[in-house]
């Protein structure tokens, strides 16, 4: 028997659905229920926007790559260690 989809969701339930909603992984019936909630809930719209912005901003985080000379030095160190180690 198909699982029934509730006709309404609370803000708490809507928040739990956001991870799948933003990637389009929610089934169509649940998407419809969530979007109906969003049409009349400014709090959840604000929450959704800040949730999406958090992900976008997080993805901009950068660290420097490993410098080229360090790569070569590290490879030499690894060669030395490998001579002392045998594959288990």
């Amino acid at each position, binding site marked *: 028997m198909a699982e029934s989809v509730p006709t309404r969701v*609370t*803000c*708490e*339930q809507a*928040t*739990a659905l*956001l*991870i*799948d909603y933003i990637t389009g992984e929610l089934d169509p019936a649940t998407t419809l229920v969530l979007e109906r909630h969003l049409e009349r809930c*400014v*709090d*959840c*719209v*604000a*929450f959704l*926007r*800040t*949730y*999406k*912005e*958090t*992900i976008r*901003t*997080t*993805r*901009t*985080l*950068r*660290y*420097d*790559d*490993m410098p080229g000379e*360090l*790569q070569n030095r*590290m*490879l030499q*160190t*690894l*060669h030395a*260690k*490998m001579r002392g*180690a*045998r*594959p*288990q």
Partner: protein
Amino acid sequence: MAQEERAQSGPHTEVTEQELVQRLQAGDAETFDALFRQYFQKVFRQATHLLGNAAEAEEVVQEVFLAVYEKAHTFRGEAAFTTWLYRLTTNAAFSRLRRRQRSHEVAIEDYLPQFQPDGHHLVRPVVDWSANLEERLADAQLQQLLRQAIALLQPLDKAVLVLSDFEDLSNKEIGEALGLTVLAVKARLHRARLFLRGQLAVAFGHAPI
């Protein structure tokens, strides 16, 4: 990450990562160098995100590639080589995180959304601070804020976030690398993002929840 991922082993030849691992298992030293050059930056990046500093990340890179050499024969090719590499990197970073003294515990829950018994947001209205973030906070400040917030995450939540939002792995691939179900990956990813959202909200002068 596809098993057929092409890896450069020389100026004119391309071999699959599977072939590279087979050569490594046969004891080919040049292949080790090729694998290192192909993947060290990926390992370094993941370790830096997990540990928050380059010095420890460099040590993790060494540990991981030494483990690749020593344990190559245990790689069966059931998952992609990169998945195995992600797992080795996560394990090496986790053992360092465990050794660290916990100096400032943050209650994760304080930064997660909270709700009234009827399911409405506890604090209303929820403020939309999503517009023009970069204009309100200098890039360097925003980066620093995010680094500090990520450092506060629980190790496994952090690992899931790093593999999802920085390495662009699917939830299934993350599950394979970390030994989690897809549902568990999603739960941890959602919690990590909610926590970061709460931290950003506070930075912009609003309630975290």
